[in-house]
């Protein structure tokens, strides 16, 4: 097992290099390159000032170097093991703190930008996974139990329709009907917190001035619509998977044995079949987490939440190379690690699986 994990971890490095190299080449080979957008901002500069600015930008980001060298330079900067400038002209090889560079457009360090955005995206995703699983498992188990009934067919069709509903439409409709002042105005239209909510108490309080919902409840109130948008399209796939698994297990030998020993149908379903049916759902988490990370691009844009997805869209539009590369790197690491965790979970959950 340890052997397997180590092998997978080692294999992650060429994968990450491959991914970042691909994204880097796309940006480098684009007409205009990366630096063009930086220079257009100095449109009304005198020629010598312009030249000075170009030189400054080139020096700072190394844009005048050949492309392979630029990539290696970036790779060296982000890797925890590499060359580091100690003094002027002197370099040391060894472990160091990874440096994600400076954002071209925002003039802030990328580490800072990402450390603000990543927790928000992770919060959204981590909250939506249990949400998705609870609903899908319940739907799947019940449609398997009442197979062929109206409930089963209805749930199947509804889930298929939900799967085809584009998030961009649902999000827009939510904002139009549930959030806008012209219609229901039940939910906030944007952001994660109300204005001034950071001065409130954490938990809801009620005093003589009236009920105040507090920081926690306020955040949840803002999160409801984005969470629904992020989750509903996964229901179809997962509940179908749960349904198939439960159906297969209900017809298996051990379920028949349990019935023969006099266990009630409910006991067979929940005590015997249910736990075995969860296995395929565990493996499929791998497919869900990367999808959610990408899905948050849309959801964050619709609900104006300042997470990774919005950062990606903003930086891609202004050709902010360092930010795009760093986000690609981080999202890829998250994706690969989630694949690995799922494989390990699978081996733990099912003793028949071994990676030796």
């Amino acid at each position, binding site marked *: 097992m340890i052997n397997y994990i180590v092998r997978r971890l080692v294999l992650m490095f*060429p*994968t990450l290099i*491959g*991914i970042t190299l*691909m*994204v880097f080449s*796309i*940006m480098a080979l*684009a*007409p205009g390159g990366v630096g063009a957008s930086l220079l257009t901002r100095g449109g009304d500069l005198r020629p010598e000032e312009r030249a000075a600015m170009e030189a400054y930008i080139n020096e700072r980001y190394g844009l005048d170097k050949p492309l392979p060298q630029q990539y290696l330079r970036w790779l060296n900067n982000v890797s925890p093991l590499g060359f580091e400038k100690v003094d002027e002209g002197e370099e040391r090889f060894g472990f160091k703190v990874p440096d994600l560079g400076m954002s071209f457009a925002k003039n802030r360090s990328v580490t800072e930008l990402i450390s603000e955005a990543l927790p928000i995206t992770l919060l959204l995703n981590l909250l939506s996974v249990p949400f998705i699983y609870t609903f899908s498992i319940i739907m799947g188990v019940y449609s398997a139990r009442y197979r*062929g009934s109206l409930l089963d067919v209805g749930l199947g*069709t509804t889930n*298929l*329709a939900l*799967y*085809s*509903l*584009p*998030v*961009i*439409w649902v999000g*827009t*409709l939510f*904002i*139009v009907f549930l959030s*806008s*002042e*012209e*219609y229901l105005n039940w939910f906030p*239209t944007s952001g994660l917190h109300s204005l001034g909510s950071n001065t409130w108490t954490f938990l809801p309080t009620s005093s003589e001035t009236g009920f105040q919902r507090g920081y926690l409840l306020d955040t949840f109130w803002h999160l409801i619509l984005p969470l629904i948008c992020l989750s509903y399209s996964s229901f179809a796939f997962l509940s179908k998977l749960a349904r198939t698994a439960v159906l297969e297990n209900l017809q298996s030998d051990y379920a028949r044995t349990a019935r023969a020993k006099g266990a009630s149908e409910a006991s067979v379903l929940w005590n015997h079949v249910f736990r075995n049916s969860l296995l395929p759902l565990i493996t499929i988490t791998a497919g869900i987490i*990367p999808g959610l*990370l*990408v899905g948050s*691009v*849309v959801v964050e*844009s619709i609900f104006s939440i300042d997470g990774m997805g919005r950062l*990606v*869209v903003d930086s*891609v*539009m202004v*050709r902010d190379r360092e930010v*795009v590369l760093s*986000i*690609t790197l981080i*999202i*890829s690491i998250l*994706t*690969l690690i989630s*694949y690995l965790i799922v494989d390990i979970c699978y081996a733990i959950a099912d003793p028949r699986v071994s990676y030796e």
Partner: protein
Amino acid sequence: MSESSIDTIHKEQAYSARVVREVLSSLGARLGLVWIVLMIICAVFAPLISNTHPYLMIVAGEFSSPFLKYLTWIDVALLCSFLGAIIIWFGLKSIEGWKRLLLMVLVSLLMSILSAWSVSSPRAVIYDQYRMGLESGKIQSAYFAPIPYSPTDRSRDNPAPLQPPGAKHLLGTDEDGADVLSRMIHGSRIALGIGLVATFTSLFLGILYGGVMGFYSGWIDILMMRFLEIFESIPSLFLILTVVAFFGRNIYLIMLIIGLTGWPGYARFLRAEFLKLRQQDFVQAAEASGLPLSSILFRHMLPNGIAPLLVLSSFGMASAILVEATLSFLGLGAIDQPSWAAMLNQAVGPGGSIAIWMATFPGIAIFFTLFAYTLIGEALRDAIDPRLQQQPN
């Protein structure tokens, strides 16, 4: 031709006929097909249905047809290909089914090349001239399309941005004052085109890559699989966003890049099929009898491995359309092309103003299209997947 080969052809036909019959027997797939056919008709006849240029107009006693004059090469290519396809499908019934399909694709390609080469439409278009002309009496009479607005006709003579649906504009106008219904009809071209081009690109690449992996196996397989895994772990929407933002917002580029990122799924599937097929007796027999590689791959293995790919490609069309919709919604879609999702984006204005007709109609169109492809995919899977047939119902 020996008797056994006649027999296989007969069975193959029976198989495809059975699949078609089973797909058509499902209500969902039938509804889906109706919607797709409706979209095809809208896409092909868009300039006939909604156009500011009158079919025919009389100026100073002389007849002229601005409609014909302003047809673009895409309009002509679509109309000619559609006509050609109809003639081939219903006129040449003696030819085998898949050969007819191939012929249709070839004729469409030929028509597109011919019209791209021969048709040139005027670049500068002044839509107001007809309305002005009719008002001032310079144009004596004109015969218009049922919806007398082109998708890019922003009514500069009488601008009406964000009008709610009414008698003049059936589904209202967008923020530039263009007719929403007209833009939606022309937008079906992008939706259909994205699905077809992107899916066929990924299908082609996937078959090539997966076929090579599955046929050679061994270290080539391991090496190619490693690359495939690297490619799969790239968040593809990020990649597409980056490419579109850096290389320009061009609809053909968007089609191509969606296709170029979608192949790993098909490759994986075909590889698994081929690995299974390689062990089968008929492939080993073909190999032992010294048939060339191309014959083994394309005549013996591919027809047996391609059925599941059809199911995948139906879902692939839906996801390609969804990606394009997402791009357009984020403001990275094609410039100045009528796209459903770009209209959806205008529903909520920058100041929080709401244009409800911009949210409902294009949204419904996107949803129906995605649902149609998904339903067809489900029906195809039920018809093709033998494992599902074995299960008692």
